[in-house]
């Protein structure tokens, strides 16, 4: 009996030693699979046609993995958990998908509406809000489980959904011309303040980096609707009601976006609608101070994080071009042609590089923003939106 025990114990020891030996022999292999790393320099690129995403590393400028199974991503956006480990992907088909970007796997996925446009993550990181076209409204989900917490029907397509300080969500209603501010301290019973008659067909909106002003662009008429979130009682103010007056209104083959718009110390740079200009607005008087003629109908007017440069892409048929505006004198300092169908741009967290998606050429191009040289090219299948994890810590995502 005791011999038996001894033998068993020896055998155990032998097996253990063998395992340790083998582990050490294959150490580099195991090490690679379990290597610890942060996610602060990672990002997600939407591949719109295949319903997949790429997880990219902005330091090494490489693709880390491809994750599939997101449905229709023809209009998609992404927000990040504040630990920057999870990406929430909002798809056109109403899909809300939570992705573990470290492992490159889908953690959870719900189809929460028939037709969706975008989303936001709350100030405390606990809630995911999705804006929907059909049926129109906003839905709130628990960020961890994706459990539905509240449904806010709007009777209109919802655009320009952002989070704001004070655990609030702000969004605009395209069909009815309203802005709603939802206090979601109690996510199961949000308190809503509605602003009506803000202007015809708000198509998108932006929030200032400090969360104070919410600005919705109007499509159905000229101008913008401005709401001071520090002073809701003052109501919505209309600005630039007749920009470009007397000029011909040109067709808009792609709706401009206001997210990421150029905000400098004194000015705000936004796309005009139906005119090939970028509008410069004084941040203190809310008057237009200039309109900068550009190559086509601007779509994204994105400020480099330091605000010194603003990069602009364009709608069809001018969508092979990107222009760079110097915000010290509003001159165009560079015109680049990354390729056919430039859909989106995203700056690295401190702006030394910008990533550009070139849909029709199936690639991403990375530019050095000081020299304007292309420093990397990565293959991607019909890439559109590019989202870096640094967004996790910005207000209004």
């Amino acid at each position, binding site marked *: 009996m005791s011999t038996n025990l001894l033998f068993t114990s020896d055998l155990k020891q032998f097996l253990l030693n063998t395992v340790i030996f083998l582990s050490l022999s294959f150490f580099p292999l195991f090490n690679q699979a379990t290597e610890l790393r942060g996610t602060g320099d990672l990002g997600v690129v939407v591949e*719109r*046609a*295949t*319903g997949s995403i790429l997880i990219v590393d902005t330091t090494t400028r490489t693709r880390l993995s491809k994750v599939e199974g997101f449905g*229709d*991503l*023809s*209009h998609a956006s992404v927000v990040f958990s504040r630990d920057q480990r999870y990406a929430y992907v909002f798809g*056109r*088909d109403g899909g809300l998908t939570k992705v573990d970007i470290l492992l490159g796997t889908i953690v959870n996925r719900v189809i929460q509406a*028939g*037709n969706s*446009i975008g989303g936001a993550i709350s100030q405390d990181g606990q809630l995911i809000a999705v804006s929907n*076209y*059909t049926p129109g409204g906003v839905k709130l989900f628990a960020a961890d489980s994706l459990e539905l917490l509240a449904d806010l029907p709007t009777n209109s*397509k919802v655009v320009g959904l952002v989070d704001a300080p004070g655990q609030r969500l702000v969004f605009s209603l*395209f069909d009815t011309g309203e802005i709603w501010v939802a206090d979601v301290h109690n996510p199961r019973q949000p308190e809503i303040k509605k602003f009506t008659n803000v202007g015809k*067909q708000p*198509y998108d909106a932006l929030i200032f980096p400090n969360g104070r002003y919410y600005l919705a662009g109007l*499509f*159905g008429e000229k101008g913008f609707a401005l709401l001071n979130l520090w002073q809701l009682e003052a109501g919505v103010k209309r600005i630039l009601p007749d920009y470009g007056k007397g000029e011909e209104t040109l*067709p*808009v*083959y*792609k*709706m401009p976006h206001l997210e990421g718009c150029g905000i400098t110390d004194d000015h705000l740079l936004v796309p005009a609608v139906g005119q090939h200009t970028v509008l410069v607005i004084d941040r203190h008087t809310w008057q237009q101070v200039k309109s900068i003629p550009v190559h086509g109908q601007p779509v994204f007017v994105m400020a480099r994080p330091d605000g010194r440069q603003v990069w602009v892409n364009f709608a*069809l*048929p001018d969508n092979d071009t990107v222009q760079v505006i110097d915000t010290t004198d509003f001159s165009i300092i560079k015109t680049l042609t990354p390729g056919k*169908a430039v859909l989106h741009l995203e700056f690295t967290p401190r702006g030394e590089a910008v990533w550009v998606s070139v*849909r*029709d050429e199936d690639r991403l191009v990375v530019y050095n923003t000081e020299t304007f040289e292309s420093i990397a090219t990565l293959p991607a299948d*019909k890439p559109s939106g590019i989202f870096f994890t640094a967004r996790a810590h910005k207000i209004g995502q």
Partner: protein
Amino acid sequence: MNMKWLLAIIFYIFPSMIFANELSSDRQKTLLYLLRQDCGSCHGMTLKGGLGPALLPETLANKPTEFLVQTILDGRPNTAMPPWRGLLTQAEAVWLVAELVKGIPHEH
């Protein structure tokens, strides 16, 4: 009418009337790509709708062809639908409408 005119009608005018809608297969591919990718920005890549309405055979069934062709070429006032006349010909719009009514097969 002299012989020259008769020949001109037979060889040039008739064929151009009959084959006005014959787009090269390259152009057809380009148009389908445009439809999915660019029209898809508003109408969805699967054409189930977005900011713009769905463009599926069942949603278009009751709409006259003329109306659909005109919508593509001239846009719709008070909506986000732009006039595509600058980028598409009449024949191309007619062809696109025919394809949409028939139903566009998905790529995947």
